[in-house]
């Protein structure tokens, strides 16, 4: 039975593709329903094809404002977390110092903690300090939970660096600063970029920690959460689809550039 043999050989491929389908199905639904024209307030049932939402993406009150706020917070959180995280990563890989274990666990713990615990405890701190909840408390929280991920990403890259390249630079009379800017930083750049991208994605999409520490400030995920109660506008799907397309194109472009570079070397 050639078919049964083929099936047995490719069973894992079939199972894997089913999982891939499970992962991508919601994105398909989001995209299809961005062309829907729902009857009621909720966009859960297919009614008829329409381009209304695509031609008027900011047609819903407050949505584009929340989107721009989320982008701003993600931008600043990325910068903050990337700078602080890169510094920690370099210290961890390049130097010996006391209390290394304690430092490592302080960086590991935020990644091993359920978000809701971090969110709730941070809120108790802000409440006790009498801090005004809003932009700044969200930014503080986002830098806090993105930091560990940046450290992990940068550390991996710096660890695999050949230290002799820096020694070579110094043998050629480059000062410490020059060595760092011209040799170390360019080699570590992919790791730093990966950490920054991760931080941006985590911050932009964060809901639970923001939900606790935002006060009455509305980020994009908070807007989506609220709309799940009040009624989901089609425009949410438009933003979701557009984000998906832009990100996939960016990744493909990065891959193509990477390939060409590899060929050049």
């Amino acid at each position, binding site marked *: 039975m050639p078919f049964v043999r083929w099936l047995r050989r490719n069973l894992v491929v079939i199972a894997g593709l089913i999982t891939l389908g499970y992962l991508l199905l919601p994105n398909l639904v989001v995209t299809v329903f961005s062309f829907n024209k729902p009857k009621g307030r909720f966009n859960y049932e297919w009614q008829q094809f329409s381009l209304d939402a695509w031609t008027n993406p900011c047609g819903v009150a407050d949505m584009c404002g929340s989107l721009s706020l989320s982008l701003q917070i993600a931008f600043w959180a990325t910068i903050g977390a990337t700078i602080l995280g890169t510094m920690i990563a370099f210290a961890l890989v390049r130097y010996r110092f006391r209390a290394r274990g304690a430092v490592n666990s302080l960086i590991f713990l935020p990644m091993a903690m*359920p978000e809701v615990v971090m969110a709730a405890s941070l809120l108790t701190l802000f409440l006790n300090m009498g801090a005004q909840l809003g932009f700044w408390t969200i930014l503080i929280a986002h830098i806090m939970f993105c930091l560990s991920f940046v450290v992990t990403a940068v550390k991996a890259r710096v660890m695999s660096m050949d230290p002799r390249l820096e020694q*070579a630079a110094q043998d050629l009379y480059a000062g410490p600063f020059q060595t760092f800017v011209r040799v170390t930083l360019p080699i570590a750049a992919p790791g730093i970029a990966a950490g920054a991208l991760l931080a941006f994605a985590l911050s932009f999409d964060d809901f639970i920690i923001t939900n606790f520490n935002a006060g009455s400030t509305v980020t994009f995920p908070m807007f989506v959460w609220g709309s799940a109660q009040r009624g989901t506008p089609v425009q949410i*799907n438009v933003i979701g689809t557009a984000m998906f397309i832009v990100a996939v194109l960016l990744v493909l472009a990065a891959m193509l550039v990477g390939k060409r570079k590899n060929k050049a070397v």
Partner: protein
Amino acid sequence: MTTVTETPPAPPLTPGKETRKPRKRGRLVPYWLLLPGLLWLVVFFALPMVYQASTSIQTGSLEDGFKVTWHFATYWDALADYWPQFLRSVLYAGAATILCLALGYPLAYLIAFRAGRWRNVVLILVIAPFFTSFLIRTLAWKTILSDGGPVVSALNALHVLDVTSWIGMTDGNRVLATPLAVICGLTYNFLPFMILPLYTSLERIDGRLHEAAGDLYATPATTFRKVTFPLSMPGVVSGTLLTFIPAAGDYVNADLLGSTDTRMVGNVIQTQFLRILDYPTAAALSFILMAAILIMVTVYIRRSGTEDLV
């Protein structure tokens, strides 16, 4: 390039020594590098834990303010009132983790060994869902699992819903607003966190080991059981942790896809903190969740013998 690197008379083995030796003040460099980031983590991650612990033993009211009265009874009351939600969190997160492993392993295996030139494309497709806000994607499950929709009808026709209703996972002809919907959403949301570590550890396996097993007359099943799976254990351990921990604290799926009968401990913490404003109870619940997860993780890592993971 090689001529340059060979110039130093005796290439030092440790990179730090050579670069640090000439400058005495360089000794403080690591501390300056660590200071800002660690300060941030201490003030906004560690200190809040202390505040949370102190809030959990306070009594009082919103109007008169809360005071620390060492009122540990809050913990017992919280556990007595909300043990079903705790139990549900563990059960749902556990079920989602097992499903993630069962669904994620074949896909990770496919990417590592069978995808060939399609490897990067499949990897991107695994990460791609992240690019759309997870709340929007979770809402999409409301459409997919809607009453009388194709998925529910198919499950009904295959008599799957009869079985799941019998064990209390679904309710008659409905999937939405049942435990099954919540588990399905949790599985979906945290599946990439299972696939990526699995893929990383599978990818490191030397393909020649498979050939060697085959040469020694091992069937594909035996090869998997004796070679591939044991070698992928680090990925299994970190994957299960990365799915179980966030799933146990999640309240988004239970809120959007579930009903009042599927509330998890995260839902309780959220409503106590943000709507009922009973801060001591909420802090106590959050503290119990943290302690429970830390204990479970420590025991799990010890038992699976991969302590170097951390």
